[in-house]
């Protein structure tokens, strides 16, 4: 992820700088296409132009900073990040395909526990299922919040 210190350019900082410029351009373009104009004073586009300019200045600042020495972030365990991501994607998928809240949350729980170093996947799946079902019953029935339903939830 991060460039070796030997190379003069600090790559993450440079990337953030470029990203800021990109957002700035999008914002500027969006502001320039606005139709509604204020009769006097400032219109809705003024704030957009201001933020676009502000982000551009920050982007320039980052690109300048990329030439100077910057502290390296510590080592990251990408496998752990991957497991949490997989859990979150499972929940999104479960809602997208209308499988329901409980199965999605069960997977999220088990995969996150895995990311934090647990190895007993079956136990965590069961625990996650119990927790998700408990949350579903508590919030859907008791607090009448509408959690997404799948085939399983309709049975409850």
């Amino acid at each position, binding site marked *: 992820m991060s460039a070796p210190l030997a190379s003069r350019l600090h790559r993450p900082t440079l990337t953030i700088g470029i990203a800021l410029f990109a957002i700035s351009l999008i914002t500027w373009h*969006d502001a320039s296409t606005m139709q*509604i104009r*204020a009769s006097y*004073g400032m219109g809705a586009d003024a704030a957009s132009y201001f*933020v676009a300019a502000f982000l551009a200045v920050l982007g320039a600042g980052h690109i300048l900073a990329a030439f100077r020495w910057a502290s390296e*972030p510590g080592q990251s*365990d990408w496998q752990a990040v991957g497991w949490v991501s997989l859990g979150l994607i499972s929940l999104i998928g479960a809602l997208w395909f209308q499988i329901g809240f409980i199965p999605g949350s069960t997977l999220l729980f088990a995969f*996150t526990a895995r990311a934090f170093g647990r190895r007993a996947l079956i136990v965590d799946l069961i625990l996650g299922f119990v927790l998700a079902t408990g949350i579903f019953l508590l*919030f859907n029935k008791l607090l009448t919040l509408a959690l997404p339903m799948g085939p399983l939830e309709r049975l409850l």
Partner: protein
Amino acid sequence: MDSLIHLMHGFGTALDPMNLAFAAIGVILGTTVGVLPGIGPALTVALLLPITFKLDPGGSLIMFAGIYYGGMYGGSTTAILLNTPGESASVVTALEGNQMARRGRGGPALATAAIGSFVAALIATAGLAFFAPILVKVAVKFGPWDYFGLMLIAFVTVSATFGSSPLRGLTSLGIGLWLGLIGIDQLTGQTRLSFGVPNLLDGVEVTTLAVGLFALGEALFVASRHLFNDEKPIAIKGSIWMSREDWKRSWKPWLRGTAVGFPIGALPAGGAEIPTFLSYTMERKLAEKPEEFGKGAIEGVAGPEAANNASAAGTLVPLLTLGLPTSATAAVMLAGFQQYNLQPGPLLFVQHPALVWGLVASLFIANVMLLVLNLPLVGLWVRFLKIPLPWLYAGILVFACMGTIAANPSVVELMMLVGFGFVGFLMRRYDYPIAPVVVGLILGPLADSQLRRALQMSLGDPMILLQHPGSATMIAVATLALIAPFLFKGLAKFRQDED
């Protein structure tokens, strides 16, 4: 005397059984999260936002304030017994507190922290009740230009004091301001940056952003760093009560800590860290036995603990009277007000006096509850340190996602939450502060509309901002605060972490 009468009415509200229950839940939750390392009050309030929006506003806000106070108490327990501060405001407490625990004086350390927190919060909450109405009287006369100046100060100080460099702080703020643009403009109906996505027309939900950045971002970061080492808390040996000498050495640091913490907490972006560090250095200089510092001096626990609790009450002054959040938790609490369509500020005191004064009164009650929870029951909280962290974080993630989709049942909202989670993770990884993003999203649109209102009244003449002495002063202060860190590198040291 006005505030006394209001406060009496407030106690009437706060003593309502429902509200007492909310306060109790708040302080218990707050103490729990304060005890658990890495989980701060900002995260907890953010997690609770989506599931409380159907509850009674008064009760929920009382609960949030209880969490805030409880977090400040609970953090000291972890700092003393584990040397891992539960939140950044108790980093200093760990210095002397953990040394005391290692020398078998964990009990008195916990006691001076709890009683000091109690004394400080009591005085500081009284200060809040006294100063808030005065500030409200000034603030009612504020025009849009004054509010705009005030928000500029908030922007600059929040981004300058959080994080490791002004560039990073301002970048976080910029992201927040940018997110604030998204959606339909309130004054003209113009859509900004919605790219044809219907979910974006209403703008970015503050709760989704806060939960994503604080809860998901934190969980991803902790997972990536393996920050979940098992450390055994030091067992409390001997009496938990303080000796006569402990009392003698503690009471002055308590009062001094309060005197430092309350006003600094009330300053924009003063937060809780600066007063705790100031209090620590002060006690070290004033101590009769300075050689004990570093080896478990009780003054080094008493002062900073009082300071961090006093600053929590101090933070509520600008939050309630001006709608200005000066800490991460305050920013999330502001989002809590907004989900009930309540805008903290002088008008809140006029329109919802029962709610505001009920909140203030319940802080006194929460404080008494916290003293009971933290002194005789401290052993109970230590057991929370034994929950396996994998399950804890897994539970937090399930709860965070559940809250967001319950408030806003759509997959797009969940995807935004996850997206913000990764942004929060990357910001932590590259050392960008989180709080300015939330502050930018909340205050950005407000600053925009205040400025436009001001310009409408002046028929488009921007000089109106400089013609009013109030706004001119505030804009000058904001400009100074923006430029100063670049001119004097030494000031950059005066930074703080987020809670």
